[in-house]
């Protein structure tokens, strides 16, 4: 019976078995599996059949039994042991018997620990059934493997994140306003002092309104939607006086904004921590290694025949790509100086070209925004034309984000990088393009808002064109989000579906050239990160945006699932699950960083509008905080001032820098230690072999002198036996001795 433990020592029948090896302390330590489960493995030896190696090693272990005391508390749970179920059951019964010998206190502790563990397992099972979309993701995993699964679990994470942000916004900003009239609270509204800055012409439609006007309003957030909870301008409350305390809405609004950005940061970092640690410890080449592909490459979850075929071809492709990459590395190392100069020059030119393309795109976005803003001031000529002008920035951004990736993939082929680097570099360029386009839009909006006809603005912003500029920015973000959603749906219905029909039913050259749609994970991830960045920026101006975002991602999940199942095949260039999770979260973090910039600038720098919103009584939104602080009790105020003073800030900065340098140095040192230990391990292995050969040689010499006295063939037999006994490399050592004994 081939039990699992035979993994730990070499087979008796095999040619290179050696009882010496079994007795080595390192071999014995393998049996103990890291934790000091000495007594556990002792019992294991005792209860199983005696198929153990040499008697000497058994005796050695026998001594060990008496030495070590019972350390039941350090035993690994039964189910983590590599034995058959009957053996595990015997183990468990043995342990229960052991426990009976313990005192009542320890017995009670053991039983409570067991029942707690079982309770925890049942609880976790219940919790996992409540997990959103568990069944759908199971199906996707079975059909397409873990790479695409990571995309969908990322989508689920975003739905949850948006929902939590919405809950935050709702409970701290909207809920007090809603319940205030129902309780005994007294709300004070913002005073509009009648100056020119606080003039806010009403935007609700009056008189006879054509029906399509409502649709236009719904799609662009103007008209009847502008003065609702949807936009910043509606929150005109200054403070709510509850019987026990006063609830200051401006402060709450500001703090919730900072809170949701912080919460997103912490949640994403926590989620990416494990992938990040792994990436730090291993260097780049290792984790794409051949061993990883061979032993951890096949996805055991695949149950579908087509998926299995595709997985096989993707593995094949990966291996071929890796082999080619080795060849290219060799080629790069062999490059001459002249070739290097040519390549670098070409790369410079192409990068300049890329920069020029990006600049052109940004400029077109800028002009489109300005044109759109200008045309919104004039009365609409036509319903459709009006919508197009409203959505012009979104349309231009989407077009730019569609064309530039194609261009980048074309250009990178000329730059002659290694395939892995090509993918990453193209992705980085696309990420930059996507996120920077939002930045350009916001920048152009601000240039409009803060530029007045007379040079300097009396109210700090252009109050004639933008009496409530935050609502206007909120409307732009709202439009971007709606348009993004429409595009995702439209592309699925109008591009992917017909393509699938053409490929399936039509046998023309077009079908062959197009091929079936691939589910390109990087592009899809960029799409949803783009949407999330819009949500993060827009929530400050449009507090209901997270709710819209949650709904949007919820529907997008089903759209993407449907298109995946019906229209797509997995990408031939597979995305590894391990690195992809990390990649998604890194891109999301970049999006978050990008989102923080506009929000910070608008909170701290630009004067808030005087005609609407909660911050009417302050010049900038940030001013709420200093004012609140000045009303706090004296001790707390002094503490907060101390925190904000230069002395504290500088010393905090210096200490953080020191800590960072220390941690970086530590990581570098650990890496070096890991490399050294690896070399040492290899050396130890070689040492071990060498010593064992020498030992065999030394053992053989007295044996050979006995054998030479008997028959020659018996001597040769014992020689060959001895040769079989030691490793094949011992053959070389045996030869000199042969000549010595044959006199």
């Amino acid at each position: 019976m081939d039990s699992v433990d035979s993994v730990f020592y070499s087979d008796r029948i095999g040619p290179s078995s050696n009882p010496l090896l079994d007795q080595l302390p390192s071999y014995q330590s393998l049996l103990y599996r890291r934790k000091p489960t000495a007594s556990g493995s002792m019992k294991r030896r005792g209860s199983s059949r005696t198929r153990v190696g040499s008697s000497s090693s058994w005796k050695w272990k026998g001594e060990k039994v008496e030495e070590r005391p019972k350390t039941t508390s350090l035993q690994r749970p039964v189910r983590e042991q590599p034995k058959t179920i009957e053996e595990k059951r015997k183990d468990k019964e043995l342990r229960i018997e052991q426990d009976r010998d313990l005192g009542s206190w320890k017995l009670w502790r053991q039983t409570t620990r067991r029942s707690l563990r079982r309770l925890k397992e049942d609880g976790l099972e219940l919790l996992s059934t409540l997990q959103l979309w568990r069944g759908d993701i199971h199906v996707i995993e079975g059909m397409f493997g873990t790479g695409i699964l990571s995309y969908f679990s990322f989508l689920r994470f975003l739905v949850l994140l948006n929902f939590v942000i919405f809950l935050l916004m709702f409970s701290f900003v909207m809920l007090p306003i809603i319940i205030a009239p129902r309780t005994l609270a007294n709300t004070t509204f913002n005073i509009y002092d009648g100056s020119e800055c606080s003039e806010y012409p009403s935007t609700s439609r009056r008189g006879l309104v054509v029906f399509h006007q409502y649709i236009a309003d719904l799609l662009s957030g103007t008209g009847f939607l502008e003065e609702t909870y949807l936009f910043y301008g509606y929150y005109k409350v200054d403070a709510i006086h509850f019987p026990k305390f006063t609830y200051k809405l401006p402060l709450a609004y500001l703090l919730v904004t900072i809170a949701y950005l912080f919460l997103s940061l912490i949640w994403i970092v926590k989620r990416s921590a494990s992938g990040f640690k792994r990436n730090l410890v291993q260097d780049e080449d290792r984790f794409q290694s051949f061993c990883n592909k061979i032993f951890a490459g096949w996805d055991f979850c695949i149950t579908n025949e087509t998926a299995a075929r595709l997985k096989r071809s993707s593995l094949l492709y990966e291996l071929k790509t890796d082999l080619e990459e080795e060849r290219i590395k060799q080629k790069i190392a062999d490059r001459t100086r002249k070739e290097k100069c040519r390549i670098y020059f070409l790369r410079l030119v192409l990068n300049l070209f890329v920069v020029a393309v990006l600049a052109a795109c940004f400029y077109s976005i800028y002009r489109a925004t300005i044109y759109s803003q200008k045309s919104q001031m004039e009365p609409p000529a036509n319903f459709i034309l009006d919508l197009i002008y409203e959505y012009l920035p979104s349309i231009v951004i989407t077009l730019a984000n569609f064309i530039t990736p194609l261009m980048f993939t074309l250009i990178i082929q000329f730059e002659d990088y290694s395939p892995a680097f090509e993918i990453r570099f193209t992705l980085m360029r696309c990420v930059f393009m996507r996120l920077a386009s939002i930045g350009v839009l916001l920048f152009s909006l601000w240039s409009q808002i803060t530029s007045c006809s007379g040079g300097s603005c009396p109210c700090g912003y252009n109050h004639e064109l933008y009496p409530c500029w935050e609502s206007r920015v909120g409307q732009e973000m709202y439009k971007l989000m709606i348009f993004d959603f429409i595009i995702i749906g439209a592309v699925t219905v109008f591009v992917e579906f017909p393509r699938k029909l053409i490929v399936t039913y039509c046998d023309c050259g077009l079908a062959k050239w197009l091929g079936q749609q691939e589910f390109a994970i990087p592009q899809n991830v960029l799409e949803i990160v783009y949407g999330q960045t819009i949500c993060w920026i827009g929530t400050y101006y449009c507090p209901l945006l997270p709710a819209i975002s949650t709904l949007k991602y919820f529907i997008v999940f089903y759209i993407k699932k449907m298109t995946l199942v019906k229209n797509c095949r997995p990408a031939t260039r597979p995305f590894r699950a391990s690195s992809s999770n990390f990649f998604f979260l890194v891109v999301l973090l970049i999006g978050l960083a990008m989102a923080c910039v506009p929000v910070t600038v608008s909170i701290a720098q630009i004067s808030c509008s005087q005609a609407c919103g909660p911050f009417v009584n302050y010049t900038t939104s940030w001013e709420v905080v200093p004012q609140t602080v000045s009303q706090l009790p004296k001790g707390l105020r002094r503490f907060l001032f101390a925190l904000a003073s230069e002395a504290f800030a500088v010393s905090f900065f210096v200490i953080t820098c020191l800590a960072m340098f220390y941690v970086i140095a530590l990581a570098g040192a650990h890496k070096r230690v890991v490399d050294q230990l690896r070399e040492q391990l290899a050396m130890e292995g070689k040492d071990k072999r060498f010593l064992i050969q020498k030992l065999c040689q030394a053992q053989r010499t007295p044996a050979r002198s006995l054998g030479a006295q008997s028959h020659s063939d018996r001597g040769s037999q014992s020689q060959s036996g001895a040769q079989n006994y030691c490793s094949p490399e011992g053959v070389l050592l045996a030869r000199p001795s042969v000549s010595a004994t044959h006199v």
Partner: protein
Amino acid sequence: MGNKQTIFTDEQLDAYQDCTFFTRKEILRIHGRYHELAPHLVPMDYTNEPDVTLPLALIVNMPELKENPFKNRIVESFSEDGLGNQSFNDFVDMFSVLSEMAPRELKAIYAFKIYDFNTDNYICKEDLEKTLNKLTKEELSAEEVNLVCEKSIVEADLDGDNKLSFADFENMIARAPDFLSTFHIRI
């Protein structure tokens, strides 16, 4: 917990829950799957622990294993006789080790067994070649196969004997980030 089931006694279910990574409901479900592989062979009443084994050919046709290139080796590694005839205990043990909750060390031990085709407790070059051919259905050229196997051994072999012992294998698996997510079967 509240339902009266007559397949196992409560003690048996407890034992299974402690010896595997499954809950009671899952164990009953797995028994259902085992039963439907051969309804006339597998009794519904396991309270007196009948000695029933199912042959390799039946188990390997399960939808979870059908598309796996290593299905034969997996079933063989979890069988008592090494030929793939699994009792219910072996069956549930197999899925327990391959479930999400099993720790990496345990999975590594069984993965080593699975990839060791000639069961000599070393993954030698022939084992690697067989693994690779099963993975790619022999679509790599012989030279490429040779190159890949050589590179893998160079990467993972620490003690310099040109084959992977369990220590080498485990060390390599600890550095392979995909292992935990790919080496699992959902049932």
